[in-house]
């Protein structure tokens, strides 16, 4: 498959933005500048970007508590996101949602969801709207291996098939549902195969290979847009941080983190591929690294200086009318 330089630049920029954003969140959290819980996505960037590059603003995604990556991949404003995570009045959700509830409906981002398995049923709804209104939009829900065992998710899978909804279920299997191994918690051999048993086409890909994700996602998005119904992708990924920032990660094997950062870093693999194939020059990538680092720096600075919400905000937006 042919990839234009502009496309590759875009892909790298987005993935790198997620990586640096998450690494900075970890830092700022440890400094005490971010309240609450944060669940970092670093390591899984290729999945969010590989899928979302097929989507426009009118397509819709639903995410998990580990949602920063999906947000950025879908085009949400990075600075507004940082303000939201810091609980500021000018954040993407006016400080009301925080890390676990970031959303931007203008960008087709239905929100990070703190309830495991929260997105699939909702994305069925978005897909139903698209189908009913004849828009040719698709919905993509993201979930983890942990969420694949939720009853709500299984119900959503069945319903998507029964109603033939344009919904792509993406399961990011990073091996851990919180601190419990997927090989314990998932009873069957393959989540992808289990999902296929519900009656939809399913594929398993290496989630650390951007191109593999991109190509598979492309096929399923096309299928959905053309009325072919739902599908599922199980992406085999790794996460570089804990379930939450501050997690002592006692469930990791010896040297596991070190190993996966060396061998399964999707950004390293991407860089190796594009420079190896001479699609892009290393200098181009380095230049982008610097620009993105500056963007993140600006995001943090603006976030720190942004105002906190006024007390009246407590009561705002409970209802449309009451």
């Amino acid at each position, binding site marked *: 498959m042919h990839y234009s330089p502009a496309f590759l630049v875009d892909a790298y920029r987005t993935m790198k933005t997620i990586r640096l954003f998450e690494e900075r969140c970890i830092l700022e959290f440890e400094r005490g500048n971010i*309240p609450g819980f944060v669940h970092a996505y670093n390591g899984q960037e290729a999945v969010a970007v590989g899928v979302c590059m097929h989507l426009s603003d009118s397509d819709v995604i639903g995410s998990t508590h580990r949602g920063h990556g999906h947000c950025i991949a879908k085009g949400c404003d990075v600075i507004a996101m940082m303000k939201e995570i810091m609980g500021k009045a000018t954040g993407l959700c006016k400080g009301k949602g925080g890390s676990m509830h970031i959303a931007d409906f203008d960008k087709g981002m239905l929100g990070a969801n703190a309830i495991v398995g929260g997105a699939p049923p909702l994305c069925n709804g978005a897909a139903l709207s698209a189908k009913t209104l004849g828009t040719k939009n698709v919905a993509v829900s993201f979930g983890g291996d942990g969420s694949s065992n939720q009853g709500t998710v299984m119900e959503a899978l069945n319903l998507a098939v029964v109603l033939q909804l344009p919904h792509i279920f993406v399961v990011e299997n990073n091996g851990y549902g919180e601190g*419990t191994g997927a090989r314990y918690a998932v009873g069957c051999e393959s989540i992808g195969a289990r999902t296929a048993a519900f009656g939809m086409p399913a594929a398993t890909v290496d989630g650390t290979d951007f191109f593999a994700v991109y190509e598979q996602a492309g096929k399923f998005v096309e299928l959905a847009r053309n009325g072919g119904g739902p599908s599922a992708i199980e992406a085999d990924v790794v996460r570089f941080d804990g379930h939450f920032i501050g997690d002592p990660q006692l469930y990791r094997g010896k040297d596991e983190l070190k190993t996966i950062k060396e061998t399964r870093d999707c950004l390293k693999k991407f860089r190796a591929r594009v420079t190896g194939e001479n699609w892009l020059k290393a200098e181009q990538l380095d230049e982008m690294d610097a620009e993105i680092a500056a963007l993140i720096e600006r995001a943090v600075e603006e976030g720190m200086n942004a105002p906190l919400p006024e007390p009246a905000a407590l009561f705002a937006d409970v209802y449309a009318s009451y």
Partner: protein
Amino acid sequence: MTSTPQQAKTAGSSRVKTYREAINEALFQEMRRDPTVIVMGEEVSGGAGTDGQDDAYGGVFGVTKGLMPEFGRGRVIDTPISESAIIGAAAGAACTGLRPVAELMFFDFIGVCFDQIFNQAAKFRYMFGGKSKTPLVIRATVGAGWRAGAQHSNMLHPVVTHIAGLKVVMPSNAYDAKGLMISAIRDDDPVIFLEHKILYDTKCEVPDELYTIPFGEAAFTREGTDVTIVAISGMVPRANAVADKLAKEGISCDVIDPRTVSPLDVEAIIESVELTGRLVIVDEANERCSLAADISSIIAEKAFHALRAPIRKVTAPHTPVPFSPVLEDLYIPTPERIEQAVRDVLEA
């Protein structure tokens, strides 16, 4: 933290323990005493199916730490993230010979498994004509204050208090937590045991031996004659602080910690109101249909002529829990609001 006047004098030793440690100790001691007691939930041990340590968490708040190494994975069961399946299994096990202590990591997740609780476990004994018993304990964290956002910070105790067939226990301190957990495990009815996040690190003297605290009996954490303050769970320390502050001005308050909201010690509240004539209820639940609203209605009905002022409720507003710290701090009843309510009933 002063010990409650209700603490029974125990013969043996006691040490200062945290709320978390006290519940952990209760679980240990009961599991040793009774082989039918099992623990189940997400990450109650942690690390299952991984190459890392076993007991990687011992509960995300550390409450079940150490249980799996002692009792094994047969009695301390890590589960997939499947609340409906977990609670359903616990309910079924409870009426067929086991005494499960199931964990809902955050009580907010009750949405995913509510049927198992309100329609199944709560109703078995009644629907089956008394022929079954459901000695189930569901432990869960509640409450705001950790900036955990709208879906991890609810106080949903009114919802379960409303359900006939359930008992609802809300200890406010380590001493009560241990005694009430032991009582909950020994109780033959389904008990919802709610632990407020902000209390986990609070500490007080806790006896080393096994002891129980009966349900339906309130504790008075402060005594006085001017105003009755009823406070629930995480609000008890706040109410105590307000009472102590007002005591310096010569205003003395009864601070009543119901400890269990179902069954509720209505009698103790009425007796106090009969002497003070003034009632303030502090409840972190949202105002509509809160425990504060419930207690107000009971007192207005049963002790109307004792009242010298309208009842005041201090609750969370009718909004979800906001994320931003400044807003969350306004959401939770503040000491200022509690103090103002006490002054209001004195002036009425």
